[in-house]
């Protein structure tokens, strides 16, 4: 297991008990999502569905998701002294609707869906962990890794002619993803930031402005999406 940075161990005692319970709750939610991502990539790698030239990409993503699982488990259990959630049982066919481990385009499509969901999920919790500098910083440092994954997978799908999406999310578009992914992109079309319409402020088109700011999702919204893949 990867070592937890010393800074976390020394900084956390400053957090009050009530806050600790709240942090454990948020981190267990994050851990649930990381379990989902790790298991998805591990099964994808074992299934042989991934094209040879792309294997290094998904090995790297799998390694990061596993590192996130181990890191969060360690912080929840041995730093915050809580109980890390067990890995749930997943059904990546979503009740027989998808075949990600025999059909590579489907594998890539769900990968994009999970990564873009992960970015929105972490963003939605930033305010809930801000009382702890170290937990916030760790969450931000996972959040940007998920965004890098998302960008890569999105562009890979387009390079293969499976979609026309870019590394960033244009409006609230799901591109060629299954309609079931609508909730993952709902709200990404937002151009109001800080109460200001950035299109009128800058004269830049709404599509580009929507790309320039990623939007958060609440825990309930994310768990609603993830529940499609729970056995």
């Amino acid at each position, binding site marked *: 297991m990867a070592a937890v940075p010393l800074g976390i161990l020394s900084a956390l005692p400053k957090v009050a008990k009530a806050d600790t319970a709240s942090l454990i709750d948020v981190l267990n939610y994050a851990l649930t999502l990381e379990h989902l991502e790790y298991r998805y990539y591990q099964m994808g790698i074992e299934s042989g569905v991934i094209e040879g030239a792309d294997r290094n990409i998904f090995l790297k993503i799998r390694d990061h998701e596993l590192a996130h699982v*181990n890191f969060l488990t360690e912080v929840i259990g041995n730093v915050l002294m809580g109980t890390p959630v067990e890995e749930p049982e997943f059904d990546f066919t979503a009740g027989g609707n998808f075949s990600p481990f025999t059909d590579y385009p489907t594998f890539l499509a769900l990968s994009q869906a999970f990564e873009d969901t992960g970015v929105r999920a972490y963003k*939605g919790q930033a305010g809930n962990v801000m009382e702890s500098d170290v937990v916030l910083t760790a969450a931000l440092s996972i959040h940007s*890794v998920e965004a*890098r994954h998302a960008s890569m997978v999105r*562009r890979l799908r387009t390079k293969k002619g499976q979609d026309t999406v870019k590394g960033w999310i244009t409006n609230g578009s799901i591109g060629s993803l299954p309609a079931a992914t609508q909730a993952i992109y709902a709200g990404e079309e937002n151009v*109001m930031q800080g109460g200001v319409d950035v299109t009128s402020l800058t004269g830049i088109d709404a599509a580009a402005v929507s790309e320039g700011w990623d939007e958060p999702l609440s825990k309930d919204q994310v768990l609603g999406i993830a529940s499609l893949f729970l056995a």
Partner: protein
Amino acid sequence: MKNELIKPKGLVTNTNRRNFLKFGTMSVAGAGLLLMGCNDDEDMMPPMMNEGVSLGSGDIGILNYAYALEQLEAAFYANVIAGGYFANANAEEKTIMGDLEKHERAHRDFFKAALGGAAIADLEVDFSSIDFSSRTSVLGAAKTFEDLGVAAYNGAGQFIENVDYLLIAGKIVSVEARHAAAIRDLINPGSDDFAGDDLIDSNGLERTLGFTDVLTAASTYIKTPIDFSQLPS
């Protein structure tokens, strides 16, 4: 238990800069911090030092820090799309560079408006070390700026007091990370550099950088002296 989505209440209620500044002043004062250079004069000038800028303190200081980095990125991509590399780039790279120019310009103009009278002046940039006709030079610099931006936002998050500002920073940093991954993939296609071990540690955590490291790295490209001594620590 605070598990609900943090709803951005809006930093301002309209685009009137004077109102924006008032809100910023109130929220900063409420956090017990001093808004540098702020007084009752509604036409006040941006905080300035001799031939340099001072970012100020508290959340305003951090917003000015972000604004400085977005100024740098926006100026860089403005040069990119006017240069020889872009003119001869393939369709994919033209789309990417065109998008990045718009995103960074939108970020820059957003922060300028958000800061209103507390915004630092326009920074003078120095891109003499970049050859805008060279793909290698442009992509290398883009990688530096995007990776630096991600590390800067990730490092600054913990110092932000206002949850609405934190969320806005979060909305922007993931887009910078998307940019960084794309640029890295253009440089080394199909590799795992998009999220390389040079940035991401064995816990799967991306690099964070503090104010000094970021501004030192940026100083290669910025002529204007930046005083960040009042930023939180």
